[in-house]
């Protein structure tokens, strides 16, 4: 499905889509959070971009792990540990690999989700990034089982993640800072679910 050179390109694309949407993500965070999600994610991915040239020729696990460490050390807030842990756990699954297939990709995404849930202790339905991640991974798993090409199952994943983002508009936040505004969180989409969807879109755009 992909080799280490392509992984680096995809990560560049992630940084790009986060940068383009930084203001949008920050604006989403204002009414229910603290008005900084895009700013923080963009700062993290800028550091990732700086470090990418040094990762050429490294295996996919090492690349993902370094991205995770960069995010942990620059993003801050809750997004830093969550995205950072996701990439580090994903890196552990891909350790030593210079090429991954569709099944490896699903294992990587599962590990990322596991990392997010380990760190954030969030379940589905609490208005967090998990509400986009779980349906997206389920949809991609199904696509892989049906023998779909990466371009196809990734498209399914993005569609499911977007539905997950829409779903977050309908529910009360019970995790993270948005939980403090209680019922006032209804009607607003979760910024973390939204940024995850952008990250997945960056992967899908490569196929």
């Amino acid at each position: 499905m992909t080799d280490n050179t392509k992984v680096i390109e995809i990560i560049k694309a992630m940084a790009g889509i986060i940068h383009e949407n930084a203001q949008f993500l920050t604006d989403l965070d204002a009414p229910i959070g603290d008005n900084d999600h895009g700013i923080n994610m963009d700062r993290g991915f800028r550091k990732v971009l700086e470090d990418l040239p040094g990762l050429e020729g490294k295996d996919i696990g090492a690349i993902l792990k370094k991205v995770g460490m960069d995010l942990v050390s620059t993003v801050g807030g809750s997004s830093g540990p969550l995205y950072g842990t996701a990439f580090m756990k994903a890196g552990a699954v891909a350790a030593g690999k210079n090429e991954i297939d569709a099944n490896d990709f699903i294992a990587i995404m599962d590990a990322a989700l596991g990392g997010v849930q380990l760190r954030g202790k969030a379940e589905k339905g609490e208005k967090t990034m998990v509400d986009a991640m779980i349906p997206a991974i389920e949809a991609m798993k199904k696509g892989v089982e049906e023998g779909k090409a990466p371009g196809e199952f990734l498209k399914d994943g993005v569609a499911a993640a977007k539905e997950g983002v829409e779903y977050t508009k309908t529910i009360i936040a019970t995790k993270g800072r948005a939980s403090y505004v209680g019922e006032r969180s209804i009607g607003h989409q979760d910024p973390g679910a939204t940024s995850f969807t952008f990250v997945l879109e960056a992967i899908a755009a490569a196929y």
Partner: protein
Amino acid sequence: MKKIINDVGQVEEQMVEGLVKAYPDYVKRIDGTTVVTRSQKKTGKVALISGGGSGHEPAHAGYVGKGMLDAAVAGAVFTSPTPDQVFEGIKEIATDQGVLMVVKNYTGDVMNFEMAADMARDEGIKVDEVVVNDDVAVDGSLYTVGRRGIAGTVFVHKIAGAKAEEGASLEEVKAVAEKVIANVRSMSMAITPCTVPAAGKPGFEIAEDEMEIGIGIHGEPGTHKEKMQKADQIVDQLLTKILADIDYSGSEVAVMINGCGATPLMELLIVNNHVSDVLKDKGIKVYRTFVGEYMTSLEMEGFSISLLKLDDEMKKLLDATADTPAFKVL
């Protein structure tokens, strides 16, 4: 946005630098970090570290010094510091007696400090933590991640810091910190929002005749908006909620009237005037009062009230010497 800054990307950096240059006898900075430590390292006693986003000055670096913190870690404005920064702080202040982290209850802060603690434990440093959750505005029972930590945190710094200075063990320092947390309650309100420099615009809007009740310290919305009222009525509303949360009857309390960054001291004193009267009416004795800016939210105009129910141990530790840039009991 109109702010007295140079570059939104340099706000935290230049703030820390300015603090260290103002108080070189008290604090120094770990090179390459936003961690501030005491200029003279404490040895043989439990060390305390706290921190959070920037924008709460004088919290937290202003409380680094004798009788309070050993290190404070500043993140980006209103954003938790990252684990690597906290870890640098822990390593710098660690003694054989261990390190206590004083963390405010926000998802990001708790995650970042706990990741740092894991890193420190891997290096054989003894680390424990307490999580402060004094804000009664947000319901801690059902739908939230628990009450937030706000200005009451400064009482934890003061009392746990004094306990550590006495040479108590990590378990004892943690126990007294937990006791403060169990006995301190706070609530805030604001009449203006604040603007995170990098965001460039306010976190919420508020009409000229409105106020936000239950506001957090990050410019995040409170529990509700309502029409502006007179100071005494606002105090009554906040105090009612605080006094309903734990039983203060017949007790002695420490009072903190905390300005959110742009509230004139005159107004804070007007607030305290009524707080003091209400407590007297209810038979609650004020042992000590602190009025000023302790845990701000940039240029937000508003205040919080914190009440700490005291016992003899906490009274003694509250009265113990503290000599830091922003908090002195001499």
